[in-house]
């Protein structure tokens, strides 16, 4: 209570608001610059690098980090692990905001964003994996919105509409898992068409599988990571159930992440073995590949296992952050760092400050939306009118 009072005294001028405000103003300038001047005015994209940071980070990594929604809702609603029920709403919210940001980022990246519905209404290029990606993004964003909507409807007092959605929750969850499986894997499958451009250590016919499995890791880690953040900054919004389940969620998800990472590690090794790419490990790219495989797959698998076994919450939280970073690194490797590996250094891509600034702006938008929703809607607590749900 006292902390709330202090916060109220400070009013609008909080460090978060000031920094977020500056970033938003910068972002609006960059937005105007992008749409008035074209992609060439703000990006370092060129004919060799049609995809840059906005695809590599905002789309590829963004979608992976939004996987917590489907992982958690599947665990609770499909697998019946009720002890994680309090993690569903925050994870769905993060997933929804993540996907919404992906769609916003796409509007910046494509040349004619007002034509984004064209694949559905004008000309269906069904031989394209990008068609699958587009269809899944559109459908899954809708599913996430519906899965999130009960929280908003409790806040707004729309009891009847809420009841309809709650009754559909199992169906929505299963549909969400199907769409996520397709969508996460299809992002990896996008690169199947470019064996000549992606370094053989990262190129594999198993790319769709790698992307899906690592997305599950990203989802699990993000739930742990995010709950440690909310516990610090929104503790006053959490009810007893959430506080009690918090550590159960962290250790349970850490154990799941340890197993999934171990599976992912062996899948990656099999990927090298199948294509007999061992000799590349001795090259510079090989060293970088080993950094990713050992440092960001094997190590977090091991640390998660220790953290879960010895009940060390601090270690689990640290490892969650570490493995989230590892997944981001993997997506950047595939889409940018190991992409066009055959080009001379002078023709390689590095993002412009405007591209980096726009990405920071979009992430900030997500944080602002998260804060707005968490402080108003029943995300971290059960609404008193609907005590049995969630």
């Amino acid at each position, binding site marked *: 209570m006292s902390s709330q009072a202090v916060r109220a005294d400070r009013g609008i001028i909080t460090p978060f608001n000031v920094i977020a405000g500056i970033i938003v103003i910068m972002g609006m300038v960059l937005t105007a610059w992008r749409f*008035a*001047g*074209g*992609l*060439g005015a703000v990006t370092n*994209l*060129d*004919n*060799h690098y*049609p*995809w840059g940071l906005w695809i590599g980070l905002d789309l590829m990594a963004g979608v992976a980090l939004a996987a917590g929604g489907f992982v958690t809702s*599947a665990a609770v*609603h*499909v*697998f*019946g692990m009720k002890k994680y029920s309090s993690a569903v709403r925050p994870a769905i919210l993060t997933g929804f905001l993540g996907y919404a940001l992906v769609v916003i980022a796409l509007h910046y*990246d*494509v*040349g*004619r*964003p007002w*034509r*984004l519905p*064209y*694949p*559905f209404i*004008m*000309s*269906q*290029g*069904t*031989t*394209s*994996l*990008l*068609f*699958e990606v*587009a*269809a*899944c993004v559109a*459908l899954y964003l809708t599913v996430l919105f519906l899965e999130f909507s009960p929280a908003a409807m409790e806040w707004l007092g729309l009891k009847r509409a809420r009841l309809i959605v709650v009754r559909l929750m*199992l169906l929505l969850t*299963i*549909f969400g*898992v*199907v*769409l996520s*499986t*397709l969508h996460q*894997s*299809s992002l990896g*499958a*996008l690169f*199947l*068409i*470019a*064996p*000549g*451009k992606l370094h053989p250590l990262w190129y594999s016919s198993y790319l*769709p599988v790698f992307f899906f499995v690592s997305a599950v890791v990203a989802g699990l880690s993000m739930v742990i990571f995010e709950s440690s953040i909310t516990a610090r900054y929104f503790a006053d919004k959490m009810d007893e159930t959430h506080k009690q389940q918090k550590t159960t969620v962290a250790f349970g998800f850490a154990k799941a992440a340890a197993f999934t990472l171990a599976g992912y590690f062996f899948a990656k090794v099999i990927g090298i073995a199948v294509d007999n790419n061992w000799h590349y490990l001795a090259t510079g790219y090989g060293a970088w590949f080993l950094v990713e495989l050992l440092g960001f797959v094997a190590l977090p698998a091991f640390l998660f296992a220790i953290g879960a076994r010895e009940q060390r919450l601090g270690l689990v939280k640290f490892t969650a952050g570490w493995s989230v970073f590892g997944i981001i690194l993997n997506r950047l490797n595939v889409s940018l760092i190991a992409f066009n590996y055959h080009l001379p250094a002078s023709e390689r891509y590095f993002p412009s400050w405007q591209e980096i600034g726009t990405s920071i702006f979009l992430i900030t938008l997500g944080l602002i939306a998260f804060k707005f929703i968490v402080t108003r809607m029943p995300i971290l607590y059960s609404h008193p009118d609907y005590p049995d749900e969630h």
Partner: protein
Amino acid sequence: MALTRRKFLGWLGAGAAATTAAAVKPAVAASNKHFEGHPDSNAVLHDLVACVGCRRCEAACNKVNDLPEPDQPFADLTVLETKRRTTEKAYTVVNRYDGLRPSGQPVFAKKQCNHCLEPGCASACFVKAFTKTPEGPVVYNPKVCVGCRYCMVACPFEIPAYEYQKAFDPEVVKCTMCHPRIMEGKLPGCVSVCPTEALVFGKRKDLLNTARQRIARRPDLYVDHIYGENEMGGTSWLYISDVPFEKAGMRMDLGITPAPALTAGALAAVPMIAALWPVLLGGVYLMSTRRDKEAHQEKEDALKSAREQEQAAAKAALKKASEDAAKAQQKAVEKAVKDALAQAEKKREEEQKAKQQAQEAGQSPDGQGQESEEES
């Protein structure tokens, strides 16, 4: 926007694609059919031996396609000092490679869209903006292009360029093999001006024969390979050379798999996942709820039997207690009756005794005796 049959079918297709997430085009997915190109389609044969690097093809291309003025004039051969690729301003470029021939003569190689038989760009485009025409050229339709640039990622030859500088109507730019000119019966711009027959236009199957003949005639000179015959499933631009192709900027590590085959497996998995995942997940859900239900039922059963045992025990105790009580009561009743009888007997005896005493006492006054009788 009138509703045409084609558009309606397209919508149906989108609906089907939305439900199964993608409808895979037949023939590319699981099939042992090998597409060898449209019959009688056209092609161009580029002979590196004959090319002198005059750049007239570049100039002609620029002219017939109304491309913007180049930064340096086409006559300026110093442009060849740096390696170039196709850009949004140039459909084709000629590059020079030094030190490959024993004679010291440089090698020149022209670069443009290779017009694949099964193009990666067309396979990758999610709005079908690229078409492989029966005439041979791969053409682009800017009217539907969203500008995602996946075609540029997909192209193994690094050909499509993008108009990054345009804010409102940027397009993908690439060589069209002068499709409009071919339809008019004319030669492609570059071929029409080539002074040395380093570029020859014709039917693809004829040009393959021409290429084989040239190689057969000078086996000492030519590398025994026709680049584009099988690369990425085959292309409509063919190359023969007296120097190794990879030294002249052409990649030999692309393989012979056509681009669509690279993604066919992943696409084929989509409807399977859409079909089977719900079954699997539904099954998991039913198993988990059933397990919960069974656990609940077991608990209930255990509670019930415990309760029944308890009840039975309680009943027995109650029965015993009530029997005991009944017995006790009977005893009490019997005792009371006995007592009462005994008392009554005693009283009677006493009365008799009293009467006897009174009689024995002789003739006591009658009235007294009568009176006491009446009172009792």
